[in-house]
C-alpha cells in the first residue's frame, strides 16, 4: 500500500444536529502504521466525526476518501466493506450470546452457519495479537475488559484494518490498559491505521504517534506526539492556557465526621459486596477510595447515603459537638430530617443523580422540592439556583430550561455537583466524579472538591485514576474485593504500592 496516501482522508466534513453544529468543515487524515490520538473536550465532536466513518451518521457535507478514492458510507455495513471498524464507548454486545455468536452476528454468509470454524478463526486472531478470551463464554459472564476484547476481535474478524477506539481505557484498570496498549502497538506494526479517542494525557503521550485536536466542532491542528506535551495539547483543546497541577491544601482541623464500623453488605442475590469494612471520614479532608471497579465502592457510598440494605455493622454521623447519629436503617429522607447535611454524587449520573428528561431547573428541585408547607412546588428558587450553577461552573447549555439529557457528560456532572454542593453539605460523597470528563472539566471538579474541603466539608472521592487520587486525596482507603486492604497517606504513598493493595489484600505482603 502506498505509504503517502492516507488510509482515510476526511475533507470538509460537516454535521449538524438541529441548530447545533457538531462538526464544522473538518479535515483529517488517518494513516497506516500509525496511532492517531483524537483529542478534544466533551462535546467537541470527536465521536460524531468517527460515527460518520463507521456509518452511524451520514455527513451533511464533505467528502470521505479511502486510500485516495471517494466513498460514501451509508451504513455500518458500508463501513465494514471499507474495512473500518469502531469500538464504541458503550459496548454493543448481546449479553446472552457467546463471544463467537456476537462476533459473527450480522455477517451474511451463504450456506450453513459454522460456529466451530468461526471459533477457530477467533482463536487465530487472539493468538496473533495476544488476546485472551474464550470464544464460547457468554458475554454476561465476562468482565468489562473481556467485553472490550470481544468488541476488538469482532472488528478484526470482519477484516477491519482501520480501527477506531472511543475512550477504550475509561473502564479499564491500569494493568488492563497496559495489555490493551501492547495489542494496539502490535497492530500498528501490522500496518493497521488506528484512531484512539481518550481524555488521558499520559496515555496519549505513551501510545500515539500523532495528535489531532478538535475544538467546538472545528479542526484545530495536528502534530507529532514526540514534539508536544500535555500542557500544549490541553491548551489547544481548551483554547486558552490551563493549569495542570492539582492543588492539595492542608486539611483544616480534621475531625471524625462519619465513622464506619464493621460494615458488611450483600447484594440482593446474596453475593458478599462489603465485608467488615471500617474507616472514618474526617471534616476538612479529602478521603480517596481506591480499588478495582466493582470492589464495593458503589455499595459503600450507597450504604452511607441510606440507599443500601446493610447486613451488619454500623455507620455513625458525628456532629461538631461529638454527638453521634446512627445512619444505618434510615432512608435518604430520614437522614435529611435528622439534620445530617449529606450530599451524594452517584456514579450513575443520569440514572440516579438526575432525571434525564427534565430541565436543569427541575433537576435542581430534586433535593429541595419538599420545602415549605404549600402543596405547590416553589419554582423560583430552583430556577435561580440553576442559573447560578450554570454561571459559576460554566455549564455549557442553551439555557436552564434545556433537558439534562441534551447536555454533554461534563456539563451533566457540573449540574449534579453544583446541586449537591449548593445545599452546604457537611459530607460530600462522590463516585467517579470525573469519569468521561475532559481534562478541563475534570480540573474544574477537582477545584470544586478542594474548595469544599477548605470550607470544612468531609469529602469522599471514589476514583479510578491512581495518579489523580495520589495528587488530590489526603488519605486513601484501598478496597480489594469488598474489604479494606489498607489506608495510606496520599502525600507519601507510592503508586505501585497502592496498585498492589488493590489486587491483593494488604498489598505486597504476599509478594515478599
Amino acid at each position, binding site marked *: 500500500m502506498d505509504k503517502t496516501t492516507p488510509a482515510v482522508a476526511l475533507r470538509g466534513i460537516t454535521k*449538524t444536529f*438541529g441548530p447545533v453544529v457538531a462538526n464544522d468543515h473538518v479535515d483529517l487524515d488517518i494513516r497506516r502504521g500509525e496511532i492517531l490520538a483524537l483529542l478534544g473536550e466533551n462535546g467537541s465532536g470527536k465521536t460524531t466525526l468517527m460515527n460518520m466513518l463507521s456509518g452511524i451518521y451520514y455527513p451533511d457535507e464533505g467528502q470521505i476518501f479511502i486510500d485516495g478514492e471517494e*466513498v460514501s458510507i451509508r451504513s455500518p455495513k*458500508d463501513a465494514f466493506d471499507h474495512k473500518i471498524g469502531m469500538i464504541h464507548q458503550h459496548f454493543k454486545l448481546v449479553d446472552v450470546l457467546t463471544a463467537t455468536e456476537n462476533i459473527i452476528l450480522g455477517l451474511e454468509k451463504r450456506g450453513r452457519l459454522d460456529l466451530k470454524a468461526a471459533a477457530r478463526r477467533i482463536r487465530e486472531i487472539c493468538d496473533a495479537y495476544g488476546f485472551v478470551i474464550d470464544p464460547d463464554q457468554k458475554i454476561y459472564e465476562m468482565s468489562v475488559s473481556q467485553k472490550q476484547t470481544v468488541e476488538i476481535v469482532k472488528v478484526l474478524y470482519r477484516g477491519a484494518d482501520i480501527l477506531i477506539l472511543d475512550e477504550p481505557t475509561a473502564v479499564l484498570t491500569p494493568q488492563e490498559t497496559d495489555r490493551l496498549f501492547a495489542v494496539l502497538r502490535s497492530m500498528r506494526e501490522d500496518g493497521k491505521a488506528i484512531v484512539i479517542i481518550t481524555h488521558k494525557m499520559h496515555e496519549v503521550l505513551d501510545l500515539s504517534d500523532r495528535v489531532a485536536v478538535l475544538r467546538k466542532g472545528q479542526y484545530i491542528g495536528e502534530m507529532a506526539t514526540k514534539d508536544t506535551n500535555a500542557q500544549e495539547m490541553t491548551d489547544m483543546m481548551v483554547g486558552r492556557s490551563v493549569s495542570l497541577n492539582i492543588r492539595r491544601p492542608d486539611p483544616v482541623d480534621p475531625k471524625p465526621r462519619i465513622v464506619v464500623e464493621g460494615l458488611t453488605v450483600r447484594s440482593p442475590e446474596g453475593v458478599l459486596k462489603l465485608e467488615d469494612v471500617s474507616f472514618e471520614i474526617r471534616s476538612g479532608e479529602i478521603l480517596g477510595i481506591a480499588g478495582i471497579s466493582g470492589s464495593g465502592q458503589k455499595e459503600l457510598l450507597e450504604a452511607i447515603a441510606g*440507599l443500601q440494605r446493610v447486613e451488619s455493622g454500623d455507620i455513625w454521623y458525628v456532629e461538631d459537638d461529638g454527638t453521634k447519629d446512627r445512619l444505618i436503617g434510615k432512608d435518604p429522607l430520614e437522614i435529611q430530617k435528622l439534620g445530617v447535611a449529606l450530599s451524594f454524587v*452517584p456514579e450513575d449520573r443520569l440514572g440516579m443523580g438526575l432525571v434525564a428528561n427534565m430541565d436543569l431547573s427541575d433537576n435542581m428541585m430534586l433535593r429541595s422540592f419538599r420545602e415549605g408547607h404549600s402543596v*405547590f*412546588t416553589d419554582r423560583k428558587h430552583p430556577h435561580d439556583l440553576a442559573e447560578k450553577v450554570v454561571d459559576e461552573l460554566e455549564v455549557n447549555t442553551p439555557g436552564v430550561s434545556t433537558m439534562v439529557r441534551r447536555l454533554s457528560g461534563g456539563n451533566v456532572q457540573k449540574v449534579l455537583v453544583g446541586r449537591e454542593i449548593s445545599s452546604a453539605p457537611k459530607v460530600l460523597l462522590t463516585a467517579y466524579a470525573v469519569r468521561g470528563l475532559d481534562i478541563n472539566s475534570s480540573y474544574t471538579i477537582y477545584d470544586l472538591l478542594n474548595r469544599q474541603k477548605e470550607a470544612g466539608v468531609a469529602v469522599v472521592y471514589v476514583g479510578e485514576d491512581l495518579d489523580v487520587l495520589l495528587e488530590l486525596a489526603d488519605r486513601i482507603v484501598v478496597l480489594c474485593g469488598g474489604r479494606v486492604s489498607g489506608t495510606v497517606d496520599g502525600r507519601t504513598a507510592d503508586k505501585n504500592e497502592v496498585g498492589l493493595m488493590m489486587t491483593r489484600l494488604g498489598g505486597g505482603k504476599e509478594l515478599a
Partner: protein
Amino acid sequence: MHNNPKEPLIHMTRRGALPWYRAWGIRLLAIAAALLVCALITTITTGLNPLAVYATMFSGAFGTARRTWILGQDVAILLCISLALTPAFRMHFWNLGGEGQILMGALATASCMILFGETLPGPLLILASIVTALAAGAVWALIPALCKAKWNTNETLFTLMMNYVATQLVAYFVIVWEVPKGSGKIGIINQSTEAGWLPVLAGNRYLLNILVVAFLTVAMYVYLTYSKHGYEISVVGESEATARYVGIKVPKTIIRTLLLSGAICGLTGFLLVAGTNHTLTTTLAGGQGFTAVMVAWLAKFNPLHMVISSFLLVFLSRGAGEISTIYGLNQSYGDILTGIILFFIIGSEFFISYRLHFRRPHRKDAAQGSAPEQKSAPEQTGTQEQGGKSEKGEVTADV
C-alpha cells in the same frame, strides 16, 4: 469498493425543538393531506362527492343543537377518562383498567340509587353515590397498584384482567336487580322519582357533566404541573432510582397516584349512571377506557392538549357514524376514514422530530443544505460525546 460513491437517496436527522407554530403547522398539513387521501378513496370506491361526504360528517357532529350537546357530552366523558389515566401514565404505570374502574364506579352509583333511592333524601343520595363511586374505582386501581408496589407485578396485564372481573360483577348485579324480572336488563333506575339523578342545569341534561370535566381538566393540569405530588409522579416515572436517591417513597407514590386515577374513573362511572344514562349495563364504558389511552398519548399526557385530542376522536367517530347512515354505507367505512386521519396525525409526529434530506440531483458540490432551518431552542449540545439515550434513536444498526 464503490467506484461511484452515491449519497443515500434519503437520510434523516434529528431536528432541534421546533417552535410551537411550526409543529402545529406540520400537524395541520398532515390533517389536510389525510383529508385529501380520504377524498380520493371516497371518490374511487363509492363515487360520492368527497366534499358532500365531509359536509355530512360535519353535520353529524354539529348539525343540530342536540347533536352539538351530545358531542360535548361525549368529549367530556372521554376526556374525563383520559384525565384519570394521565397521572398513572406520567408515572409510567400503564393503567389499562379504565373500563373496569368506570364499571365499578357505575356499579357503586347504581347500587346506591337502587338500595337507598327511597330512604335517603336527594342531595344525600347523590353524595353517597359519589363517595362510593370514587371509592369503588379507587379500590379497583389500588389492587394492581399494591401488587406493583410490593412485588413489582406487571400492571398492564393486571389492570387489563381487572376489567373482566368488573364486567362479570356488573353482569351479576344486573341480573340481581333486573327490572322487570327475566328481562336481563335493569332499565331506567328510579324513573318515576328520579332519585339520585343529577340535576338538570339550565334545562340541559349534559351541561353539568361538561362543567365538571372542564373543572377537572384545569385541576389536573395544575396538579401535575405545579404540585409537589405532580413532581414526584414525574420523577418516579422517569427514574425510580433517582426517586429513591432523593428520598421519594416509590411505593407510596404509586399507590397514591393510582388511588387518584381509579377514583376519577369511578367518577366517570358516576357521571354516566347518575348524569346521563340512569341505568347500568356491562357495555356502559363502551371501550372508552381504551380510546382514552390514545387520547392521552396523542396529547403527550398534557391535560390541556387532551381537550383537543378527545374532541378530535369524538368528532371523527360521530361524523363517521353519520356518513354510514346517510349514504347507507357500512359502519366500517367511517372507521376507514377515521383510521386514515389518525394515521396521518400520528405519522406527523415523525416529521416534527426528524428532518429528511433528499439526494440533490447535482451532487458535484456535495452541499446538502435543504430548507434553511431557522434558529430555535438548540436541541443537542454535544450528546454525541455521551452516546447516551438520545443517540440510540438514530443508531439503528450496529453490525
